[in-house]
């Protein structure tokens, strides 16, 4: 079977069901797990209740026949009344119990599905997250699981409705085949309805859902970018765009509702017309010299034919929901069955205490196939060394950090910590030992305290306070409305950008990792705050392997060696002095641009020379690695 697996299968847009019906149904029921027994019992209840309610009119009809005979005993009527009430009561009790049992099972079913999907999603490849909106991923956990639970109910209801249909028809047949046949006059109408709703209805419903989805997506995006819309005076335009989508959604919504509205009178009118037909046929049969029917039976026919219509319609209505649940199962299976390309192998071992230092060996990587972001990258960071990565924006620096965290695996080549390949290290121990301060800090909707504690859950409040003091965050946290207990909203929109960055620094430092990676970690801090952070870093992480990515000279000042990146390649590496002595790219960069971060004026001439130098596009020099590896004194 051609089901694509892995991240691309997950990220790929899906328009059609990719699995056969049988598989989807099997999965849907397979997931019932410990609820199977409850469901079976519930189903039995539902079926008995259905049978009871199919036969209860018989007793009313018998009663009518009875009273037609003058002088019938009242006791018999009472008796029939009792049977009737018992049947209805039992049917009510059973179907209520069915609902009771089912709702418990459904709730549990939803929960176990939710947890499984969530577990899987939390471990799914990042490329999946990059390709989808977070809202859409969330709907796997919420909407789809609800759909699946409804799907289960639909299948049971389907069975009982079918049963009701067959039983009703059989009773009518037993009363009189002609009556039964007359009741079939409703069939053409039902067919029309089924076809109408199967085609136009289904289409309109999907179109309407899509239209609503567009409205909701637009509102969501406009709300999160509201400050931009305001800053650019685009309120009228965003409102106009929304209005257009809204009108579209109204149009489809109206169409769909009219279809639904059309159905109700169609069904009711057909039901009444069928009653007229049965009445006519029944009446004709009941009269004459040898009546084939009693009046009670005519009544029974009239009652039954009305019951005949509903299950047919319910069935056709269920089809839509059934389809929806299948589609959900399909999407959910995509997630549950996908093999994340990044996960622990069987032979994965924890990172050994002795493993330290990072080396990249001929690493090539691309986010989108064909567009290499890193090409043939080789470098080594020795244990305990602090290395800086510099380079143009978009050169691939953040990508390096992502690869060391094994958010992605390289396409070619290997990355090692000590002598251990990343792919052979358990993810848990990797992340315990390697910590990243990301370029885009992300905080959770929790208190400041808890956000810092995220780095090490068992840390005490004192430790957190102490660390905050050390990096200079305490000062501002203290004066927040509720100090450390201030709750952040929507990822920290009630804090300043620098404050968010500080908290994310504190969080990572608290984790106390063996290897530390700082990706523009202090880019939003002023020089003074940055120096505090650097002092703290020296104090806490001296002699630990550290990679610093930065554009600011202040940030990389302490590095023992620098790697210069350009367009996904390392073009130079060495100590600051070595690089300057090389009179290459770095020197040119330094003289013109880094130096100008200091107070040096840039003369036009120096600029010209530098630019010529940069424009030469020399082939990358043979890496300096080997020669430096020998005299392992980088740190």
């Amino acid at each position, binding site marked *: 079977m051609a089901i694509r697996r892995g991240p691309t299968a997950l990220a790929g847009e899906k328009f059609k069901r990719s699995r056969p019906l049988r598989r989807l149904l099997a999965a849907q029921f397979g997931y019932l797990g410990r609820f199977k027994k409850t469901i079976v019992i519930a189903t039995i209840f539902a079926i008995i209740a259905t049978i009871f309610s199919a036969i209860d009119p018989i007793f009313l009809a018998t009663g009518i026949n009875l009273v*037609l005979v003058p002088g*019938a005993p*009242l006791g018999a009527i009472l008796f029939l009344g009792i049977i*009737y009430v018992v049947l209805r009561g039992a049917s*009510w009790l059973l179907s*209520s*119990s069915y609902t009771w049992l089912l709702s418990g099972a*459904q*709730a549990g079913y*939803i*929960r176990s599905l939710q*947890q499984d999907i*969530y577990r899987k*999603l*939390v471990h799914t490849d990042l490329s999946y997250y990059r390709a989808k909106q977070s809202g859409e991923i969330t709907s796997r*956990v919420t909407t789809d699981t609800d759909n699946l639970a409804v799907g289960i109910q639909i299948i049971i209801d389907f069975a009982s409705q079918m049963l009701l249909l067959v039983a009703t028809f059989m009773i009518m047949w037993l009363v009189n085949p002609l009556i039964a046949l007359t009741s079939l006059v409703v069939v053409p109408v039902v067919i029309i309805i089924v076809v109408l709703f199967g085609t136009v209805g289904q289409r309109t419903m999907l179109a309407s859902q899509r239209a609503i989805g567009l*409205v909701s997506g637009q509102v*969501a995006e406009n*709300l999160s970018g509201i*400050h*931009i*819309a305001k*800053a650019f005076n685009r309120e009228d335009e965003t*409102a106009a765009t929304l209005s257009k989508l*809204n009108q579209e959604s*109204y149009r489809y919504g*109206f169409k769909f509702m009219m279809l639904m*509205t059309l159905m109700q009178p169609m069904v009711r009118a057909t039901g009444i*017309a069928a*009653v*007229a037909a049965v009445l006519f046929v029944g*009446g004709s049969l009941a*009269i004459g010299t040898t009546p084939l029917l009693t*009046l009670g039976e005519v*009544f029974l026919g009239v009652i039954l034919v*009305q019951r005949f219509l509903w299950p047919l319609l319910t069935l056709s209505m269920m089809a839509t929901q059934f389809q929806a649940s299948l589609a959900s199962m399909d999407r959910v299976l995509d997630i549950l069955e996908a093999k994340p390309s990044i996960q622990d192998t069987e032979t994965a071992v924890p990172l050994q205490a002795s493993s330290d230092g990072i080396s990249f060996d001929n690493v090539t990587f691309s986010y989108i196939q064909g567009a290499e972001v890193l090409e043939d990258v080789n470098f080594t960071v020795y244990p305990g060394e602090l290395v800086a990565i510099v380079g143009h*924006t*978009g050169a691939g620096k953040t990508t390096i950090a992502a690869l060391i965290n094994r958010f992605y695996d390289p396409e070619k080549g290997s990355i090692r910590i000590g002598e251990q390949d990343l792919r052979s290290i358990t993810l848990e121990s990797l*992340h315990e030992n390697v*910590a990243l301060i*990301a370029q885009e800090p*992300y905080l959770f*909707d929790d208190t400041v305290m808890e956000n810092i504690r*995220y780095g090490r859950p068992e840390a005490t409040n004192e430790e957190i306070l102490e660390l905050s003091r050390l990096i200079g965050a305490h000062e501002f946290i203290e004066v927040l409305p509720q100090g450390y207990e201030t709750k952040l*909203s929507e*990822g920290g*929109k*009630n*804090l300043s*950008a*620098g404050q968010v960055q500080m908290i994310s620094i504190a969080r990572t430092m608290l984790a106390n990792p063996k290897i530390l990676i700082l990706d523009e970690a202090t880019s*939003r*801090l*002023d*020089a*003074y705050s940055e120096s505090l952070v650097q002092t703290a870093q020296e104090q806490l992480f001296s002699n630990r392997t550290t990679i610093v990515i930065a554009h600011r000279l202040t940030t990389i000042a302490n590095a023992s060696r620098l790697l210069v990146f350009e367009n996904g390649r390392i073009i130079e590496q060495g100590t600051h002095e070595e690089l300057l002595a090389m009179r290459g790219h770095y020197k040119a960069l330094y003289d013109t641009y880094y130096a100008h*971060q200091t*107070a*040096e004026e840039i003369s036009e001439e120096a600029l010209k020379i530098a630019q010529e130098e*940069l424009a030469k596009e020399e082939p990358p020099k043979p890496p300096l690695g080997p020669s430096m590896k020998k005299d392992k004194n980088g740190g």
Partner: protein
Amino acid sequence: MAEVKYKSATGYQLAALRRYPGVTIVATALALFASYLLTLPAILIGNAINILDTEGLGFAFIMQVWTILGIALTLFLTILLAGYAFAIITLRWERDARQEFFELIQDNSMTFHDQVDSNQLLAVAMQDVRWVRFSLNPALRNIISAIGTLIIASIFLALMDVWLGIIVVIGAPLYLYLAYRYAVKIEPVRRKRSEQNESITSISQEVFRGIEVVRAFGSEEREQEKFNDAAGVYEELTAREGKLGAFYLPTLILIAITTIAFVYGAYLVLVGTWSVGMLVSALGLFAAIEGFSFMLPRFLLVIRGGHVNAQRIIKVLNWQDPLEEPELGVTEVDWTGDIVFDNVSFQYATDNGHNNSYALKNVNLTIPSGSRVALIGGPGGGKSTILKLLLRLYDPTEGRVLVGGIDLRNVLTRDVRAAVGLVEQDIFLFRMSVRDNIGFGCVEACEEEIFDAAQKAQAHEFIMKLPKGYDTIIGERGMTLSGGQRQRLAIARTLVQNPKILLLDDSVSAIDAQTEYSLRKALDEVMKNRTSITVTQRLRTLLESDLIIIIDKGVIIATGTHDSLIENSEHYQRIFKRLPGALPYAQKKPGKEAGN
């Protein structure tokens, strides 16, 4: 004093009906007529059976059958018309209410958006509005039919026999009362469940957005546990709601009444008071009542729930904005004039009210026309706040912000934002093409300007390398771009707007030195004779500024040129000393100063 737009939730819930009173009345009348038509066949069937019983098959019988057929046709048209009328008025209302809601909250100032969670706003705009509509159509529409049927059938029954009438008069209110009680009992659980559903959604969404952080700290298990707890509560509530709803007691009343009516009716036939047809009619009427009863509880629930939804909506709509637009904005503003902060203090509103920390405190500032200003200071100092006040995203809590001598409070926000351009610190890009993102501020087509701005912002080159160049769609929040690429797109976006006052909030923090240099050269070009304020951490910018403002904890520490500050401001010296290369400069400085 302050005017409240929507007084009561009930009024809001019924707004659709009140908007088209004529249509509503006609539609309601049609629905009631349909209820009447629906009960009529029961009577006619009874008649027909009577006719069969007494005179046999004949013209009278056939007439009954034809009448029933005629009713079927009339019923079809009546329900269709009623449905059409209800659909039009309610769906139109839903469309307009959603639009109105969005436009209103969009016009609310940032104070509002700081306080209210955007996910919650989305839920209100989509879900609550929709549920209010549901509460009218189908819920109210069907309840009108159901109660109509109940009443009409009761009248028919009462006409047939007094005692039967009494039974129904006692039974029907009891039935309705129990059904209502049922809805009242379930409704809170149901609401709690949907709130729990919202919280599951936000828990997941938060983790999915920050998945890299979760991974980097290896806290998948912890997050899983958190989720499991939430899912457990959800399970409990779902089960509780389902179980509470399972045993619908009012059905028992219907069963009881039907049975009593059956036995009593049969007795009446036996004693000769009733014809057999009347018994058939009575049973038919009960069947008609039952036909509606099974959906009554659900619709009652929706109506009750709709009231809560309406409350949620009007709570948002009635929010009072502290930022008030002037009636007639001053249009003659000299945007190249001096910018003055006159004793400005500012507090961000917090949702729980007690906020006594000031983001800005007694700020007095004069920025001379056309100058290039650098704003520096520690995290949370208030730099971004100053820029936001200039954009009139907020009004100062105390004091005034003046441009060219005019208090910004007297200028329409639209005019302020047309003249002032801000590159924000946390870049937000829309899920659109690169072209549309840069051209976001364009009112009409502006191909030229887009390319021009991209070039100036040093973005053109990398854009051309993207898979589809300017037509590449940017992923959610620009996640597929590098930090510096995002910043340059944002700068280009602001340049397209061609602002009179340019505000750059730390907009080059992720841009390398070389690119920054080219960028600044291009910006110098653009900003000739205009005022620009740059928040920066880079020394170079300080040197090139006409005015440097140091702000810390909301208070201005010092202002002046580089030269004067390095002389007089201890704070500035302290910052400056940290910058590499500062030392040689500081040492060289005396000489330079002599030269000046």
